């Protein structure tokens, strides 16, 4: 176990489940575990016990780089008034199917 960990709490891992062939791995939740193998086993026991999965990913939560609420303005607001970025904005010419 790495020294960074709080003694009473193992590393947090985010769990992604793929439920059908060629489908995306979807985030379903998280587990605590001391290492990757145990994280995979815990994810299997917690998130695939009712036949939900054909593949599992676990990722250390601290490896995920996320935006913070203070990023929201500059990151997301500018796209709000640019509805022309949606394909629905454009009229489909008559006769085109």
């Amino acid at each position: 176990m790495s020294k960074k960990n709080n003694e009473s709490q193992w590393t947090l891992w985010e769990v992604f489940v793929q439920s059908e062939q060629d489908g995306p791995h979807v985030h379903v939740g998280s587990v605590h575990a001391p290492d990757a193998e145990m994280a995979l086993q815990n994810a299997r026991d917690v998130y695939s016990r009712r036949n939900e999965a054909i593949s599992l990913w676990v990722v250390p939560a601290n490896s995920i780089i996320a935006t913070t609420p203070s990023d929201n303005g500059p990151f997301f607001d500018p796209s709000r008034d640019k509805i022309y970025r949606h394909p629905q904005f454009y009229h489909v010419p008559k006769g085109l199917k």
Partner: protein
Amino acid sequence: MKLDKKTKEALFEFLLMLGDNRLILGHRLSEWCGHAPIIEEDIALGNIALDLIGQSSAFLNFAAVVEDKGKTEDDLAYFRNETEFKNLQLVEQPNIDFAYTIVRQYFFDVYSNLTLESLTSSPIKELAGISSKSLKENKYHLRHSKQWLLRLGDGTDTSNLKTQNAVDNLWRFTKEIFEHNETENILIDKGKIPETVNLSEQWYDLINKTFEEAKIKIPENNSDFSSGSRNGFHSEYLGHLLAEMQILARSYPGAKW
């Protein structure tokens, strides 16, 4: 399925051994529910307990069919007494702590994987079928208990000490696993189950390998072994377990929920 009387009785007993091992160990694991060290492990132990009880249900159901006295799997599980149970003494041993639980589980899982694998080639198709379905589950159980054993043994000084202590105390129940008994001999002679004499060597090989990696020593005292479960001799713990497991079915016969 046409079997002579002697073979039929042996098959019934053999199925009880398979079913009882899983029923009793499954019950023991279920005692962890709400008490495991972390919630993920609580769910894992619960899953394994349910798998084992499911396997037990299949083996006992088939046992009732073979016995042909109009009984059900529930009759066999809830209305037999202590001396009629055929499970190994190993699986009835109390949980004590997480290390004991994992060591007991690892000993059983290695054994179970070897047995079920060999039984998949039984000419009795029900037995082969239940075994192959159970084997899939047990392969995961083994992965789970082995990975824990490695981490507990080769973890901290405390976890190593606790694991070694569990091994030292449970070791005396391991020899019984491979004691050949009349029941198995009859079925082997009749070609109903595969010859499994080499099973114990494979078991010791696998245990040795894992223990070496986990920095756990095999106890040196190799004379003090306990056995006799196939003839109804159990440790003091089985009676208490059965009292708890059977009380509902015995107090309210035919209860449904």
